[in-house]
């Protein structure tokens, strides 16, 4: 039994991996064989064979845990004592949580707006130029890099060395400051501006997504619309403002809401760059700290439920906008 749980050598790990995949294939194969064998089986039996494993996993791994978390948010640290709304009261009234909520609001407003704006402008500017594919690849690349990797990359940009004779800056941003005669800054330590420097990293990661989707939307604008506008003498900024942007409005909504949801849930950047110290924590990071560092399960559950509740209106808005767009079409 132990062989299947603890793998410490490379060979053992790969063997275990192969075993897991084979086991999975065997179980699925047997299941499909069973539902396919008898002639004239009712449809729902076949459907159960195809769907069963997925539904079972979703019930055990998503639905039950989500309900248990909602319940846990009304209980104390270790889940044994009912405390009513105390955990939520803590989140909304204690001073350090006020900072967390404020930071989260800043993230959720700034990241989608700036990301979408930059992605839109860039997609519009490089659209159908000679360098289009190279230009897009450059902005797209951060999407392949983990948020942890991106955080390390930017931590190095923000790196600070004391301002003393003989000490040279090794962070790019502080070097630029020194070049123009400003004292180097501890970008990640000084609240509240440090939150903005973290937000920059998230924008850097997400811009490629915004650009790709918006670029596809811009390319889908029918030629005759652009042609008609041009014959009317519309050009340059006016074209962008009155033709391009209104034509791709549904795509803009999708990008804004998708980035907002991702931003709300993300904790990698904060955790890697500051660990949530120096007044930079956000709800997603505070959830991890409370649940798995402080072992305050009740408070952690309340923060997770808060995330859940915050995501819902964004999704509803997104779905409604998509419906509207379809009705117009």
């Amino acid at each position, binding site marked *: 039994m132990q062989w*299947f*749980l*603890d793998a410490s050598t490379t060979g053992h790990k790969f063997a*275990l991996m192969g075993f*897991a*995949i084979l086991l*999975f294939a065997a179980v*699925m194969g047997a299941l*499909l064989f069973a539902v396919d064998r008898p002639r004239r089986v009712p*449809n729902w039996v*076949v*459907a159960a064979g195809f*769907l069963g494993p*997925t539904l079972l996993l*979703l019930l*055990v*791994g998503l639905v*039950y*845990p989500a309900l248990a978390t909602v319940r*846990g948010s009304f209980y104390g640290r270790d889940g044994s004592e009912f405390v009513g709304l105390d955990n939520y009261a803590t989140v909304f009234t204690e001073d350090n949580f006020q900072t967390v909520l404020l930071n989260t609001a800043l993230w959720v407003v700034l990241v989608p707006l700036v990301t979408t704006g930059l992605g839109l*402008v*860039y997609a*519009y500017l490089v*659209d159908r*130029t000679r360098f289009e594919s190279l230009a897009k690849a450059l*902005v797209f*690349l*951060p999407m*392949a*890099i*983990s*948020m*942890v990797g991106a955080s*390390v*990359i*930017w931590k*190095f940009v923000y790196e600070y060395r004391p301002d003393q004779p003989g000490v040279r800056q*090794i962070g*790019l941003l502080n*070097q630029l400051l020194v070049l123009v005669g400003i004292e180097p800054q501890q970008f990640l330590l000084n609240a509240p501006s440090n939150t903005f420097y973290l937000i920059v990293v998230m924008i850097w990661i997400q*811009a490629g*997504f915004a650009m*790709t*989707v918006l670029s*596809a*939307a811009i*390319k889908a604008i029918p030629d005759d619309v652009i042609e008609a506008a041009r014959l009317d003498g519309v050009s*340059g900024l006016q074209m962008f403002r009155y033709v391009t942007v209104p034509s791709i409005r549904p795509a803009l909504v999708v*990008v804004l809401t998708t980035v907002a949801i991702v931003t709300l*849930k993300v904790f*990698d950047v904060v955790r*890697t760059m500051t660990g949530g110290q120096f007044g930079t924590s956000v709800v997603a990071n505070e*959830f*991890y700290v409370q*649940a798995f560092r402080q072992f305050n*399960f009740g408070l*952690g559950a309340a923060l*997770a439920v808060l995330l859940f509740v915050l995501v*819902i209106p964004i*999704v509803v808005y997104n779905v409604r906008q998509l419906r509207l767009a379809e009705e117009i079409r």
Partner: protein
Amino acid sequence: MTTTTPVIAPAPPEERKLGRAERRAVAAKTKLSSPAASAIALLIAVLWTVPTLGLFVTSFRPELDIRRSGWWTALSDPQFTVDNYNEVLYGGGTNFATLFVNSLVITLPAVVIPITLALLAAYAFAWIDFPGRNILFVAVFALQVVPIQVTLIPLLSIYVDTGLAGSFWTIWLSHSIFALPLAVFLLHNFMKEIPASLVEAARMDGAGHVKIFFQVLLPLLTPAIAAFGVFQFLWVWNDLLVALTFAGGAPDVVPLTVRVAELAGTRGSDWYLLAAGAFVSIVLPLAVFLGLQRYFVRGLLAGSVKG
């Protein structure tokens, strides 16, 4: 979203001489001919490239140089070494080679399992008629809303109770579960695009659902599978939250991301280690991404815009 539909508008005769691409090219030329526009595009391109370049150059510089001068000095005075990579991959304190194996062992099943399950589920939703189909599909679709944070505490206690905690199984299972709602939805969309007549014809020939699934649909779905595969590969390889929660304390299981994040906290000024370590963790997803970019973009557009 609408796909580009060819517009057969009666264009004026002299317009016909210019093809669609050419006319667009003329438009683009006027667009970028403004110096301000090119300057903005160039600035964005530089801002999105230089930070990565900086850390990449740093990862090949000698430890002492990294501490004494900025990476840009290496452009005029190139001094490069692979010592940092040797240290980070095989050094006792970091041992990233082992972590690379862990990441790989975590990722492959966490890509294969949810895609297989989702394909079967998507097939049932698309081509098998059974009572309650629509309600179930909407329910699965709606589960996309659930943030994984909401599930972590109860899942961890399930894993502890069943004795799985701290093994690869917890991570394989968790990633498979979290991927399913989106995967089912996406693959269902692709599956619906396949003409019903193909499926009907196979049914007329007496093929059962299993045969139709494997012999008719699967070959046609290869691009969709590749699209979601790249997506899921990047998601799992780059994940921090799931790995940290379920394998944070298990050195035989932790993937690269967890250790890189840890290094950034505990040895935040050892840039020779951090730079090389970060690139060890980046190189494989980057290669996959560059190689399969076409599929990735396709998946991205299908997921977000088709909605």
